[in-house]
């Protein structure tokens, strides 16, 4: 992909981010394998081999959010059938262990979870397989499969075992080690999606776009366009936020249209240019992103909602 290499070199911010050492480490296999092309025919097999990953390539903290549906559960779990949304952080150690911290909503029932015993393996083609026991209230053995992209800084993830779910997660690497309030500062695009189960007057599909401006000191204003199952409601709100040292963000604001205080939480990704969040209000299964209006040049954070 020659065009892409050109852009990577031109973008100064990306050069800083990747770092020369990292860049060389990533390019080296491709260079070696490109030389192999000259020796051995078979373009397709060379392309396949040109990208290799190991467990060590998946390390650090990854902010994530997910949204989907539980469509088939055992009778004792029937109350949780419906929408599911989550946000939080995967913390792979580069050696096969990945503790997971989550805020989750199962059909509108909110819960916090910590899964210390999850394990993973990364195949040479950069596919990540996870094994874990789902946190309560589900508590069932499960498997996730993820595909890394963008040099291992992003991943899309599907819950594959047990069957009966339609859940996709989006992950982005966290480049900050410690956070303070001012790591969430400036103007952000709000982009949330999901379903509201309760209250009945709000129930149905949910989408929200908007612009949120944080003062870097725990306060924000936002102009929001909220879509409640096809009904469009514009709203301007003010609220407060916290951002702890581990880069977990929580925002709250009183919403007239929802007739309640809406709170959402999640983890900061990148250098603070994105937050992956989920709404914590009882009855809501909504998650999404806050993306900085400035920075990153539109190439790093193509997160699908």
């Amino acid at each position, binding site marked *: 992909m020659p065009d892409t290499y050109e852009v990577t070199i031109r973008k100064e911010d990306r050069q800083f981010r990747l770092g020369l050492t990292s860049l060389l480490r990533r390019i080296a296999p491709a260079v070696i394998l490109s030389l192999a092309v000259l020796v051995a025919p078979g373009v397709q097999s060379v392309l396949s081999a040109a990208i290799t990953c190991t467990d060590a390539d998946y390390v650090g903290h990854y902010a994530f959010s997910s949204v989907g549906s539980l469509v088939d559960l055992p009778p004792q779990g029937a109350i949780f059938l419906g929408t599911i949304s989550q946000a939080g952080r995967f913390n792979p150690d580069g050696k096969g262990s990945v503790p997971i911290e989550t805020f989750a909503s199962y059909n509108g029932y909110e819960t916090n979870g910590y899964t210390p015993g999850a394990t993973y393996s990364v195949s040479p083609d950069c596919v990540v397989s996870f094994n874990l026991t789902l946190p309560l209230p589900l508590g069932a053995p499960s498997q996730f499969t993820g595909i890394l992209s963008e040099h291992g800084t992003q991943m899309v993830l599907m819950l594959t075992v047990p069957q009966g779910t339609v859940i996709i997660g989006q992950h982005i690497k966290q480049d900050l080690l410690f956070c303070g309030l001012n790591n969430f500062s400036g103007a952000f*695009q709000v982009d949330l999606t999901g379903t509201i189960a309760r209250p009945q007057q709000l129930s149905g599909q949910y*989408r929200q776009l908007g612009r949120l401006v944080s003062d870097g000191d725990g306060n924000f204003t936002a102009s929001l366009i909220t879509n409640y199952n096809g009904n469009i409601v514009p709203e301007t709100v003010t609220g407060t936020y916290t951002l702890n040292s581990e880069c977990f963000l929580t925002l709250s604001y009183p919403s007239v249209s929802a007739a309640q205080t809406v709170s959402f939480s999640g983890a900061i990704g990148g250098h603070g240019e994105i937050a992956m969040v989920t709404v914590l209000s009882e009855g809501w299964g909504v998650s999404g992103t806050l993306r900085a209006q400035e*920075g990153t040049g539109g*190439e790093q954070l193509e997160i699908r909602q």
Partner: protein
Amino acid sequence: MKRLNLIGGLAGLLALGSCCSVQAAISCATGDYNGTYAFFTTGYFLQLPPAAASLMGPFAQAGTFTSDGQGNATIASTASYNGLIQPANVPATYVLNPDCTITFSLTLPPPLSVPSTFQGVFSQDNGQLSLMITSPGGSTVVGTHIKQYVQNCKLSTLNGAYAIDMEGSTNGILSAAGAAETGTFRRIGRVIADGAGNFTATTLADYNGQIVTENFNGTYTLGTNCVVSLIYTNGTNPSAQNAASRSGLLARRGAGIHETAGGQTITISGPLASAGQSAMVMVATQGWAVSGTLKAVQH
């Protein structure tokens, strides 16, 4: 998007406090929205006039918004209305506000053909836009737009490994086993393009909660307009046929990938975005309302 100068920023700090100086730091003008943006859309039409009732249901779309930087745009796309595939090319006007929110006015393409308003918010230095249909009501349709920097594409522009990430719904897709598949759909996986018009794919598909391994291979085209189409025929992909009883049911068309369902050819097609690191695609085969992205694993 422009930063105000330092003097202005300091004046803002002195006069208005840190809150407002942050707000003043970002500004957009009409000319800042200029060029081509690749996009895909997903959502639902929940209410439509009786004459269009058959189009209610899941919606997916992929294509381009091209702006002249002076308030005018052209939208070229392929859309799926509840599985009915329709190409469209419509003009629009837009107003870009100083806070980098944008409002489009246009008449929706046939078969809807009604005046409409889209509203959106830019991020990432105007490189990314999220956009919602806000008028008429009755839909939950949101699009994701990424600026396109690549031009004059050729087959070799799509080369290497890409993560595939698509979602939506299927409406009566006939599986290889003859079952009608209707419900939520997701696919993730890995596509490898050889830069010469051939690709292989290893994927996981989720049909309303049933996870199936589906591997397939096919061919792709990539025109100078940077629209890629991947095409495959289910019946010629033994790995897909053997993966599960429903292996024959995928057919993709849109941003360049064709899938074949039950003997059909399936196309996945859409434009490249950024400098070619990603593509915004949809399945352009009847019965599918599925869209998403291909994103380079490495670039």
